[in-house]
């Protein structure tokens, strides 16, 4: 796909700058579950984790060891930070497989081994820039800290929150306290019927920057809409991660760098927040010839 002059022209005119490195390194702590509450189809856990809460920046995530000390589930589960403050961090977990199901079963007073905060934050726009935040499913929770930060920086915020069904929405009330919220569901069981991207199309003309968190297909659609409207966008990706701290190289995506060249960048340490125009969504899961180092893999230019 890339390599043709049209795409080269776009990469030459990237709208986003890479997300900044976190101000503080992560810590590993065994912490207590201080609160647990079901939210629709998900479970919100609150952790008493002052050092993580103090360091957390909007867009960052934490990584949990699951299943107990001798568990056969070895890999950590990465979960986006929803809120952080007053010594506590909250996360919203969807019970998808054995690891995340174990997490949703933690009760108040249980302890969990957590590493964080990890990854890079959502970059802030110039003060006062009107912003659009777009959340899909439990991804909406990860936009809470960002929305509050944007508000504090004088940005009016519009939020579009979508899910397949009403019970898969989350953080709608919390976002409503900080921003004007439009809700969409695929089946019409809450808010407007349709996709988040339909609602995005109607409001994108009113903002100067776009942020998103949710499934890959949604991120791609939102990023494309923003880029087509000439707006910078930042998306938090959710790529399969084994370590979450940058040592294993499992979580890579084809990302266009500042020099215009594409690299397999780690979504745990160079991300999870990437400029929407820097992620080569169409090439996720492929090995395009123009990725740095593809030649050494025997991949040649077509």
């Amino acid at each position, binding site marked *: 796909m890339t390599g043709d002059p049209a795409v080269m022209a776009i990469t030459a005119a990237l709208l986003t700058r890479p997300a900044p490195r976190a101000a503080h390194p992560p810590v*590993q*702590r065994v912490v207590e579950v201080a609160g647990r509450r079901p939210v629709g189809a998900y479970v919100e856990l609150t952790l008493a984790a002052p050092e993580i809460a103090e360091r957390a920046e909007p867009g960052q995530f934490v990584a949990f060891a699951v299943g107990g000390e001798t568990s056969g589930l070895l890999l950590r589960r990465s979960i986006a930070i929803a809120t952080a403050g007053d010594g506590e961090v909250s996360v919203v977990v969807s019970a998808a497989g054995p690891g995340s199901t174990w997490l949703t079963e933690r009760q108040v007073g249980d302890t969990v081994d957590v590493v964080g905060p990890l990854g890079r934050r959502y970059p802030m726009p110039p003060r006062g820039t009107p912003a659009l935040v777009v959340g899909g499913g439990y991804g909406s929770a990860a936009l809470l800290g960002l929305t509050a930060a944007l508000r504090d920086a004088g940005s009016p915020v519009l939020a579009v929150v979508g899910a397949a069904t009403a019970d898969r929405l989350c953080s709608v009330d919390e976002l409503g306290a900080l921003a004007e919220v439009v809700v969409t569901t695929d089946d019409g069981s809450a808010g407007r019927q349709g996709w988040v991207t339909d609602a995005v199309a109607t409001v994108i003309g009113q903002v100067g920057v776009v942020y998103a968190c949710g499934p890959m297909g949604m991120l791609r659609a939102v990023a494309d809409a923003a880029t087509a409207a000439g707006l910078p966008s930042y998306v938090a990706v959710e790529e399969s991660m*084994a370590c979450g701290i940058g*040592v*294993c*190289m499992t979580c890579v995506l084809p990302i266009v760098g500042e020099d215009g060249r594409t690299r397999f960048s780690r979504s745990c340490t160079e991300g999870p927040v990437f400029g929407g125009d820097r992620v080569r969504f169409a090439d996720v899961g*492929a090995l395009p010839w123009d990725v740095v*180092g593809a030649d*050494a*893999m025997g991949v040649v230019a077509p």
Partner: protein
Amino acid sequence: MTATETGVHGHKRRFEVDLRTALGSVEVPSPVLTASGCSANGAELEPFVDLTAIGAVVTKSVQLRPRSGRPTPRMAETPSGMLNSIGLQGPGIDGLLSDDLPWLAERGARAFVSIAGTRVEDFAELAQRLRGVPGVLGLEVNISCPNVESRGEVFACDPVAASDVVSAVRAVADPAQPVYAKLSPDVTDIVSVARAVTDAGADGLSMINTLLGLVIDPDTMRPVLGGVTGGLSGPAIRPVALRCVWQVHQALPEAPILGMGGIRSGLDALQFVLAGASAVSVGTAVFNDPSAVARVHDELAAALAQRGFASLREAVGYAHR
């Protein structure tokens, strides 16, 4: 809300066991190292582990040129283990020499550099370029890559190809840098490969590398990994790794062994030492616990003390008595 955050290691105790060991001719203060490809080139572990206190950082296998690695998905979790098909993503030797090795050297961390290639000359050129580089303690030769000149057969599966690589590396490598050959368990007779590479001049043996495995997604009914097959690692492979260390130490008691494969705790590490390893690497366990390398060191010290060993050296191969 009462906030309780406890350190992962809890309290630190001092044990009277002498944990010093050697990698070939070079002394190191701790027998616990990282494993190649499981700690990148060390920097990301700095928040969790004192890099100068561990035996060495074994760097991700480096090749001559930058490599993108394979397409995603590159990982599948399996019972007590995982499959990976990373495909040796890395910056190439220029990047390692300009960024990672100076970074480690500045901190006083020891680097055991893993080198990889697809032809014998690649390995030799890498060894040449690492001569005299500050902080480079030694070389681990990852012979688990396909040999382009031999229909893609993995070097480590053929005693002749494996010894060709090792003798070429030993011939040009800095004489002060011990050369360890990293063996694959996917062979009929690991002892014959071990013997071939020690005859070719290997100063020690690293074992084991991952075992070739496969996972199929029952929903898509296709292999999960972009690379179809991948390397199996983690506690699931520990009995295989331990068996390899046992067999090789039995046959070649003088050959130093860097043991690895599923080490998660001090007692796991102790088993490798008792089987004949004089040092160990912790790989996949780092993904579960980023401070695992330091924790395994402390737990190994405690385990040796509890068993009445005054030094690690006394325990090496003790299970063969």
